[in-house]
């Protein structure tokens, strides 16, 4: 097997006294769409934050494109090709939609000049036409759904090899999700690797190819998404009885 794009081994993260992850190992292959499901406190967000360099793991290794990257800071991880869409969104509220996108392209602008950013922004507007309508509006005044689109687009502006999304559905109406999930599938089809943490397990397992089920800081189960969707243990805890 070739070297996976992302390989996390035995990751341990603490917050204060709390052990958030206790030896988590996951992989994302080049071009894969991988999901992570699990209850609150399972360690999903902590894993993502550690990979993105937002928090420093206590122990364990993280390899990206075959190179060890644990301990690197988040701005360094963006340069290596990892973009995180954080839980609860974080737009630069007092800047316009377009300014937020330009900031997302900071690394690209350094490498390829400001002209390259223009093309990327237009691509984002094609992907999310609503953002084009809102281009000059302050990001803080956008609705929840629009902000989520903006944060995804801002992440894409760094031309990542791996896009990590923490809680896509948080606070979003069903109609917006009907729009957002197919966009992710399309991005993945174009070659982008995606790691998705999502509480609506039905949706997560429907779009991803492989998934991990986390519990209590461990990986409890992993496998092909369509099979996990029929696993009795998963159905009981995460999918609800009606399925």
């Amino acid at each position, binding site marked *: 097997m070739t070297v996976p794009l992302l390989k996390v081994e035995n990751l341990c993260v603490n917050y204060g*006294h709390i052990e958030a992850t206790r030896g988590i190992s996951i992989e994302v292959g080049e071009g894969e769409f991988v999901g992570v499901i699990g209850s609150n406190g399972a360690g999903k967000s902590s894993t993502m934050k550690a990979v993105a360099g937002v928090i420093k793991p206590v122990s364990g290794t993280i390899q990206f494109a075959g190179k060890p990257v644990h301990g690197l800071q988040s701005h360094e991880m963006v340069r290596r090709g990892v973009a995180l869409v954080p839980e609860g969104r974080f737009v630069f509220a007092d800047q316009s939609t377009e300014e937020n996108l330009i900031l997302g392209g900071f690394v690209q602008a350094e490498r390829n000049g400001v002209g390259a950013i223009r093309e990327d922004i237009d691509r984002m507007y094609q992907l999310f036409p609503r953002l084009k309508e809102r281009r000059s509006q302050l990001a803080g005044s956008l609705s929840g759904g629009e902000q989520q689109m903006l944060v995804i687009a801002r992440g894409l502006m760094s031309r990542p090899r791996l896009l990590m999304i923490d809680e896509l559905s948080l606070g979003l109406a069903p109609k917006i999700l009907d729009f957002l999930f197919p966009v992710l599938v399309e991005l993945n089809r174009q070659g982008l690797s995606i790691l998705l943490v999502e509480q609506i397990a039905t949706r997560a397992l429907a779009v991803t190819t492989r998934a991990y089920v986390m519990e209590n800081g461990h990986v409890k189960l992993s496998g092909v998404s369509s099979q996990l969707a029929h696993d009795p243990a998963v159905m009981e805890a995460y999918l609800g009885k009606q399925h």
Partner: protein
Amino acid sequence: MKLPLLKRFGFPVLVLVLGAVLYALPHMVANSYELRVWMLLLIYALVALGLNILTGLTGLVSLGQAGIFAVGAYAVAVLSTKFGMSFFACMTVAIVLSAALGALLAYPTVRVRGVYLTVITIAFGIIVENVAIEWQSLTGGTGGISSIPNATIAGVKLDDHGYFYLLLVMFLVAFIFHYNVIKSRYGRAMRAVSQSETAARTVGINPIVIRLMSFVIAACFAGAAGGAYAYLNLYVNPDTFRFDDSVRFLLMVILGGSGTIIGPVLGAGVLTFIPEILQAFGAWQRFAYGALLALVMFGMPLGIVGTLNLWARRFDKKVNRSSRPWPCIDQDTHALLHSSAKAGDVCLSTDELSMAFGGLIANDRISESLKSGMVHSVIGPNGAGKSTFINCISGFYRPTSGGITFMGQSATGKSSHQLARMGLARTFQNTELFGDMTVLENVLVGADSRYRSGLFATLLRLPSFFADERRYEQEAIRLLQYVGLDDYAQEKARNLPFGHQRRLEIARALAMSPTLLLLDEPAAGLTHGEIEDLMKLIRNIASHQITVLLVEHHVDMIMAISDHVTVLDYGKVIASGTVQQVRNDPAVIEAYFGTGGTPGKVSNEEAV
């Protein structure tokens, strides 16, 4: 087991040790100059302790404390020399006058915060200094006021040793008051206001009152210190009360560890003695002073005591905390959740409520009424005006037009903390917790408006203080058990996983003993299993006659637990009625449900 012991007896032991060491001090020092330095230390520590309450707890940075210190000193100088007033009379006037100036300084916080507020405190210091120089008939101008009589108590004129012991008593009383404020509902409220003013308002804390209180306490301490300084020096002139001195007072707090109990005292000690020690550097004394300060702050960014605390915590055992099954409902739950409302009464109603932001009409003539003990849901697409509606009825926005009635009283135009005190509790979409306070403290802040013991009882630790603390701490722990978070009680709130933070926010809201609970997307970020637990929790809350207003996107949940559903689109009510009525409304399906999920598939099991 060592922690509760330390918690219980740590402070009394600290006071005793500190008192004993200082008591023996006059017999240990080499000469009267050294004793004088120690007396200065006690006086500066007094200022630093007060400033710690303002800066370390409430988060307001004052660079004008020397101005208040000056007012205290001049009050004593003028009253004792010109009117021959006694020590106690002079000190009382000094403290009262300083408190009044503290209140004056607090006034700008109504509209000015952060560095802008600090600029105002600097301006205050400059004004006081200038008045001291120019109002010559009162202050003696640059020459100052000399021949202040020694402090006399009960007819005995105090010598150096006597005055040292007087200062020691003042210092110990201040140190105990300082501790009693920090470890009380006032200390918690101060930290709450500095960490999230929004959240503090939602539990009924008026931030203006808290900031006023902090300024006044800090001013009382500084004024008393100023008065004590006049009696030590027996001479005051404007040189001792400059901007430099204000900076030094602030440095004492920050260097020692702002917000800590012993930090300001340690900071005052270091900054009083270091210049003495550094005299060996001769002309380079100030260089050495600056370099030392920079090095210490770089190595210990939270101040000496704050950083030592942090280092000590590294050795704490790491634990695997977990949520307990929730909601934990037992025979005691009824005592925990009580509402005086009668089922079926109107809890809250809006009358043609409208809210416009510039040209955008976010809420358009909404007239809805919430019945007591019901679960009333508001749904609609993102941007439909749900959050605006919640913010209007909870007092965060002032509606452009229309009225709100809550529990039979007009609530139109009431501010959020007033509404909270009337019984309206709420949570936030992205959670608003006091992140640097523990989980237990967050819930205790929720109960703040129900405490009966006031500042007086708190400072003197009267029985009513202990009764309140015991009662609400027990209740807070039971509320944490109710939402399954008791294992996390001593962790900082910001270390909790997002979904747990939501539950903590609900526990904090319930600690207010509300009649109406507004939940803004409580299910966001929860798994299916957790949502089922949340539904049980919400049903149980409503069964105790606490009305629940729910804004949520989780369709199955809304359909399963709502007694009434209001659907908003573009700021207007497009449907309002029972689940059955709303579910089949074509306008609702078109605007909200989209193609993905029609809400018909609610199983019987779930609807129970």
